[in-house]
């Protein structure tokens, strides 16, 4: 990000005009909160993340003649959601570690998208490694400090059982290695890391040392996670702005949220697909 805003008001005015004209596009990176959307599955003796559920209170009927509304229930980690540092044991003592404490400016930042879709197509356990990151940087430049980094796998296009891809030995889905996470967190100083899969870690992430390295390193360093993202194929490798504002839940370890990206419209192929 090399833009130096000499006049912030003018900058925002330009942005507003660009949003109206379509020169800057808003891309929705969120899945619909749907009762049948998969959640992470733990061994059944552990408590489970609540599925999204909705109950009608009234629908312009005897229960309320002029209005329709619902009660809904879900977990903090249901659907497209945000992971706060306090979600993981490594982040339990991080200052401002819960969603209500995180300063709002932390939610918005530039975003780098590492396209691993070809690798994930060939190998469902595809790993994001330092080598993959190095190859990306060779093409796109060094990942700027404070960036959101998203791992694109096109996993969001999978449906039904293919999404969790659960087998007798656990789930099989792509994710980062411990070395990649250390590189991103310690050396690149990223803001957070996001994936299209049900977690920031690989389906087999329990078998790394440390287990679940994305959760371990991100949250231990006070960084954030985004998962179950959608439409990452509509983002450029660099140059977009990510906005991910979780619900302000007291001591919340995460939250479902609407994740959007501001994307410069350079005649990208999917402009009309939304």
């Amino acid at each position, binding site marked *: 990000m090399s833009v130096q805003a000499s006049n912030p008001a003018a900058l925002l005015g330009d942005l507003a005009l660009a949003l109206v004209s379509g020169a800057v596009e808003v891309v929705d990176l969120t899945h619909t909160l749907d*009762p*049948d959307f*998969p959640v992470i*599955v733990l061994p*059944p*003796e552990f*408590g*489970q993340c609540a*599925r999204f*559920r*909705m*109950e*009608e209170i009234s629908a312009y009927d005897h229960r309320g003649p002029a209005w329709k509304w619902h009660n809904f229930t879900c977990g903090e980690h249901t659907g497209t959601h945000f992971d706060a540092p306090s979600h993981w044991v490594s982040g339990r003592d991080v200052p401002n570690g819960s969603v209500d404490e995180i300063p709002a400016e932390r939610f918005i930042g530039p975003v780098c998208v590492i396209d691993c879709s070809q690798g994930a197509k060939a190998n469902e356990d595809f790993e994001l490694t330092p080598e993959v990151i190095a190859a990306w940087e060779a093409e796109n430049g060094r990942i700027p400090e404070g960036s959101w980094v998203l791992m694109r796998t096109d996993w969001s296009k999978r449906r*039904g*059982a293919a*999404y*969790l891809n*659960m*087998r007798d030995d656990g789930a099989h889905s792509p994710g980062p290695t411990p070395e990649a996470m250390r590189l991103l967190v310690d050396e690149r100083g990223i803001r957070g890391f996001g994936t299209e899969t049900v977690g920031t870690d690989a389906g087999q992430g329990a078998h790394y040392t440390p287990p679940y390295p994305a959760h371990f390193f991100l949250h231990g360093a006070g960084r954030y996670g985004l998962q179950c993202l959608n439409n990452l194929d509509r983002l450029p490798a660099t140059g977009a702005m990510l906005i991910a504002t979780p619900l302000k839940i007291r001591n919340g370890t995460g939250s479902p949220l609407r994740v959007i990206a501001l994307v410069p419209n350079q005649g990208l192929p999917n402009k009309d697909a939304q």
Partner: protein
Amino acid sequence: MTTPIAPPPKKDPQQRTRVQTLPSGARSRAALGLTAAAAEGRFMLQVCAKCGTVQYPPRDACGTCLSVDLPWKDIAPEGRLIAETTVRTSTSTYFRERTPWRVGTVRLEAGPSIICHVHGDVARGGAVRISNRLDKSGQGVLFALPAERTQNMEDDPQLREMTANPKFRRVLITDARSGNALALAQAFAKAEASIIFVGEAEGWRPYPHRDELAAIPGVQLLPLDVTDTSSVAELAAEIGGKTDILVNNARFMRPGGILARGDTVFARDEMEVNYLGLMRLAQAFGPAMLGRGADGQNSAAAWVNILSVYAYSNLPALGAFSASSAAAYSLTQCLRAEMRPGGVRVMNVYAGPTDDDWHQPLPPPKVAPQALAKAVVAGLKDGLEDVFVGDVAQDLIDRWRAGPKILEREMSETDGGAA
């Protein structure tokens, strides 16, 4: 022999669905003893504690010695048909719609002569076996069956009025993922159910017996999650009008009582599935079933709940689960009252520990899925309301009837297999 029923034709969309009419449901309090016994398929009459006279009809004082101590006892069912008639017209709308209807008088070997419905295969003056059945009003009535089994005897039209036989009916089993789904589907296939819908929650994660279940003739797997109101409503919109027997086998259980758990997470899951799941199913499927109680050979016939016998008395080792079962049990009483006007039987099948992952540390006896499934189908064929499967459940209900407070204390010293 009885003429076997033919597979029912497809419904004529131009004809009004026949409205359920009911036989007279009024009974004296004493006569309700017969109904209570019929709920479990037991033939019981009052026997005077003082003089030993077997009473018929039920009454408040002994016909011989006027004692009011008249406990209900199981009675030997053997007898002989001594008089019979076939009703060809009746002042009752219910019977007028179902004539000819055979009734008769049977002299019981145990003493009294009784008035009863008579199966078509009973010969004049022939030996009979008296069975105590629930009629469409849910009241106990005596039914004379042939002493020996006859061919297709379940298809007797009068008997079929008293039962919920799965033959040619369409069944919905609500939870494919349950360990008993396979055995239930197999049992219904064997009982000649015409379609076996099986509800499948969370199709996005696998479960072991899916292929075997899907391969059973007549089985159709459809999305259903009893914790998701929209999913229940959608399935009811699709198949509610052709669900003749609903078997709710969805269940959530985790070991533990109150103090060791320290939270309400599993307790909430237990209530969501075991109690609210039943409520959602009832609200979605109940109205259509209620309207189809007299809809031909494949009329709506029964609603089956598979419940833990710890609904009756809390097993502290499974304390929170027991509480959700008690809530479900209470709700089934409400459902039974609400479904009765439609002639739809609500049958509860109670089991103690079942042979599954959550009872794995527990020593036998445990109820195997096949035994449970067999009890479900047998209970439907007999038109029961209450079935206690296995020694643990039978023993518990006997002790509960003898003294619920004593049982409560005994339960606190029972090992529930909580690891």
